[in-house]
């Protein structure tokens, strides 16, 4: 695994996504958006009706997170990734709409992996369960859609050096499969 850390500024361009490889560590700065299953369902319903999305997804990064409420004087509560597989049913539609990267934890479906190759998008993992640590890289947070969903609303986050690791690159690389294969002890 590469120890070189890649700095990314969100939103991302196609070349930004294309130069990433599974296993690389990245630090993201800029603006990213949050979304979980409930918000994804609403976004895809808008696409189905041919209506405009509350956020233009071109080049954007969606972080799968339902943050804890902010304590007084804080920007946000603990904010680690949730399981990405729950978004798989909706993801190819959002990739087609220009989404360039997703941050979460856990494996993606074959359909999503194929769509990532097709639309030149990447999947990044943040450390699940390290929500207190990750919250330190979030400098601003505001709700931009679906406030009625509470923790599941779409937030716009301003992040600085948000740490993640590339799991799926646009070339078909898959860290979960490669890492597991490397460390599995084969039983004959």
């Amino acid at each position: 695994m590469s120890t070189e850390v890649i700095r990314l500024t969100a939103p991302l361009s196609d070349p930004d996504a294309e130069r990433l490889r599974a296993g690389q560590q990245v630090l993201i700065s800029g603006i990213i958006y949050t979304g979980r299953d409930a918000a994804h369902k609403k976004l895809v319903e808008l696409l189905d009706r041919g209506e405009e999305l509350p956020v233009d997804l071109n080049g954007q990064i969606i972080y799968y997170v339902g943050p804890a409420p902010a304590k007084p004087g804080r920007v946000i509560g603990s904010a680690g990734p949730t399981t990405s597989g729950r978004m798989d049913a909706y993801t190819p539609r959002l990739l087609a709409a220009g989404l360039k990267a997703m941050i979460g934890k856990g494996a993606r479906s074959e359909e999503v992996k194929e769509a990532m190759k097709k639309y030149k998008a990447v999947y990044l993992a943040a450390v699940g369960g390290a929500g207190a640590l990750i919250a330190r890289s979030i400098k601003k947070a505001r709700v931009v859609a679906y406030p009625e969903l509470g923790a599941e609303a779409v937030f716009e986050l301003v992040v600085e050096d948000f740490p993640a690791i590339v799991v799926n690159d646009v070339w078909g690389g898959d860290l979960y499969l490669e890492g597991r294969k490397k460390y599995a002890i084969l039983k004959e």
Partner: protein
Amino acid sequence: MAGLCQEANFQLGADVLAAFEKGLQEETAPAGKDIFRQLLENARIAREESVPMCQDTGFAVVFVEIGQDVHITGGDLYAAINEGVSKGYREGYLRKSILNHPFERQNTGDNTPAVIHCRLVPGDQLKITVAPKGGGSENMSGLKMLKPAEGVAGVKKFVVEQVSFAGPNPCPPIIVGVGIGGTFEKAALLAKEALLRPVGQKNPRPEIAQLEEELLTEINQLGIGPQGLGGRVTALAVHVEVYAVHMASLPVAVNINCHAARHKSITL
């Protein structure tokens, strides 16, 4: 009650922290080692700043051991527990993750109701344990009614397959709770109770302690590793509980806990 909910979410137990230190030593994958360092740092921040270690502050699973000489007065015990959960989650800035109905899916706004398990025990004390349970690892749990002929080998196969299937999803390094025997619901409850044991404490029955050891070894040969990035430490511990069983049955339940193995108790 409210304090227990908050403490459980802010303060990771010494047993789990010790298991992280051990994992950091045993893990050979550089990325895996780095995960252990981040988890130790995360636990420190949560404790020092009184913020939840994970944004998923869980379903409040509450175990109550009621001494049979105790007489509870002044109202409904279940209502009192839920009131405590509500206060704890609201005042502690914990996330409210509970929805009213599997299909209506409206947030109840205060993380109630709790899942409450009461048990009568001898004595005159009341012991309450709060074990907030995250959704990601709960979703990777499973139960199977095996044929008795499948025996220990069948149980091991199912447990290892379940962990293998879960892969990176339940936030490894995990703790695996296994319930074997009883009925369908008893096996599930045993698996949950197994997670309440201090991490790595063995079952007092030598043959079950042996099974725990063998399962841990096999699981850590899967290569999943911390956060599923590849490595040797997929599970920190396997805890197995057993119960008497019907002659026709061999139920086995696997309840997976993420590394945020949270629980706090109080005895009144």
